């Protein structure tokens, strides 16, 4: 029961963080695109955003399927 509650908490937390990331991207999109198109060292802007979203949203999607009961069968090989 405790672990189920923790799983729900983590999923909701990561979901909120992911939604916040997307909201911020939407809200500041003009400034972000302005930086992106300058190129050069500004390449760090889209690359960093991609990494951040992959960690936050990737964590959320993993927990999401887990919570729905869609889990891997077994470890295949080590």
């Amino acid at each position, binding site marked *: 029961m405790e672990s189920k509650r923790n799983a729900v908490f983590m999923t909701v937390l990561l979901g909120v963080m992911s939604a916040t990331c*997307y909201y911020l*991207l939407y809200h500041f*999109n003009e400034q*972000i*695109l302005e930086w*992106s*198109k*300058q*190129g*050069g060292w*500004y*390449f760090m*802007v*889209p*690359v960093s*955003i*991609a*990494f951040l*979203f*992959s960690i936050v*949203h*990737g964590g*959320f*999607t*993993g927990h*999401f*399927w887990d919570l729905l009961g*869609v*889990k*891997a*069968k*077994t*470890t*295949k*090989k*080590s």
Partner: protein
Amino acid sequence: MEISFINLELSNVLFLFFVGFVGGLVSGFIGSGGAFVLTPAMMSMGVPAIMAVASNMCHKFPKALIGSMKRAKYGQVDVKLGIVLGISAEAGVLYGATIQTQIKETFGDVGSNLYVSMVFVVVLAVVGGYVLRDAIKIYKSGSTDGTAKTTKLALWVQSVNIPGTMMYFPSIGAKVSVLFTIPIGFLTGMLAATIAVGGFIGVPAMMYVLGVPALMASATELVIAFIMGMGGTIKYAIAGYVDIRLAMVILAGSLFGIQLGAIGTTYVKDYTVKIVMGVIMMLVLVSRGLMVPVYLSKMGYLEEWWGMGTLSENTIQFLDKTSYVMLIFALGVGAVIILYALISGYMKHNKEQAAAN
């Protein structure tokens, strides 16, 4: 080129999210896929070709990162092989891009499209046909674990000993000379630069030339895709071509898909990866094959070589649309097979668990 970004409409966002999900599902399962639909889809929304390619790359590397981490948990990833192949693939991407530019300068846009389509048709017919035939053979053989015998070529590659170049790879369970892995990575990269789906050669090459099991080959391909995607993204981002909004919308859907595709691999036998890959490759082959007469006609070759005249505008439009629909169909069929395999494997597993209890 003046860099300008398109206005994002809700319908476009939803479409990219959905295609991202389906593409992610396929990628999580066979190691690649989605790009061949996403790039033309973005172009049809008015995104310039180079920005569509750049934005696609920018969603690909974080997706591949998450997918490879997930499949590494299942013990399916050979990180060492992925890194070795990934580095040579990066060199292949750069060389492939140079060739592409030269062809474009010499023969123009239509000539470049004809070249890409011809590469698609030849590679998919030979490699895709072989993968599908192999999958059917294993299925008919009734092999209980669904794995294929190591090919004669792979056995030979594993037997060659070139001192100073040998490296042990866990997925192969043997030492292999990097003189074999370098050309494989290079060709994967070259193909990725040309048709955007390097996995169509990388995965079969790992399976048939190196002797890597299909499930491990498709998982290791995600490491290669991460390295190639990351390198490609940096290259395009330095030039300012990445539309991060498009990339992150696609990523939103594809991360749901890639998790599901990766989970699916734990419920299937080895040959299912080959079936999905072979079927997608055959359908993409038909799609690209439909466009060959269009480009031949535009370049005047239909008349010059066969005296057939040129194709009418209506015929060109029909072939163009049919080809695009066929690409979406290819991705859709792949996703349906994966979902079917996942659901039936999941139900069978649950029944076995219930019986055991």
